[in-house]
């Protein structure tokens, strides 16, 4: 059971490059869902490796140009959840870490090589303008909140 669960997790963690029916388990942790969705959707933890979440959660005073600091209890709890569910949690290998070298710490999901290969040339300037920014997944992926990132 434990093994098949791990196998299932590995499968759902790495579908993006495999097909167009992309699914990524959405955030299930209450504090993470609440705090990380105030300015953008709460991005699924599986989109970034552990080192990225740690870097992000320890630099909230300059979060992509804004102060997003949290009280220490919430901050630590959210960091722990994100790290435990990251792309490489438990030594897992994820297709999403394709072309990310181990000494790199990506901070933006939108700059991950898999993201760029999925989106470059796909998003018209009109659509991007309507969305506001590439961080607004749900502008095009209507099911993003449920983890569904189909085209």
């Amino acid at each position, binding site marked *: 059971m434990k093994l098949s669960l791990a196998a299932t997790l590995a499968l759902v963690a790495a579908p993006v490059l495999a097909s167009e029916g992309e699914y990524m388990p959405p955030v299930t942790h209450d504090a993470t869902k609440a705090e990380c969705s105030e300015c953008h959707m709460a991005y699924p933890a599986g989109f970034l490796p552990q080192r990225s979440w740690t870097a992000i959660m320890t630099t909230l005073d300059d979060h992509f140009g*804004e*102060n997003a600091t949290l009280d220490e209890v919430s901050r630590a709890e959210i960091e722990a959840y994100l790290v435990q569910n990251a792309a490489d949690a438990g030594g897992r290998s994820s297709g999403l870490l394709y072309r990310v070298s181990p000494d790199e710490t990506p901070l933006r999901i939108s700059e991950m090589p898999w993201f760029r290969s999925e989106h470059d040339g796909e998003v018209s300037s009109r659509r991007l303008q309507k969305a506001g*920014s590439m961080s607004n997944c749900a502008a095009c992926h209507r099911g993003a909140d449920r983890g569904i990132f189909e085209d």
Partner: protein
Amino acid sequence: MKHTLILLTALMAQPVLAQDTSPQALIEQYSAAAGAAASPENGQALFMATHSGGKPDTPSCTTCHSADPTKGGQARTGKPIDPLSPTANPERFTDTKFVEKWFGRNCNSVLGRDCSAQEKADIIAWLVSL
């Protein structure tokens, strides 16, 4: 049914607010801490001004909240921000923790420092006067 669902989704997207305070109570509290009455005019000036001490992407409150706080704004991510003025949005300034969290973040983003109690009182006093 569909509309109920949409409504429910819209409601769930809002932060859960404690409703433990009111704009008036906060004005009184911050004014008392500052030792001076709130000035809506100063609040407006602070809100509308372009500042240089904070982060380059957020030089003013209006960057995200727009110059008309009775209407909504937009975060740099593209996400809509509900109107800040309690006149237009009665949920505003009803949760002490939420208010303190966002003053803490946004004063530091825009001014590069915390807002004083006086400044907080002034801004809320202006927002309720709209």
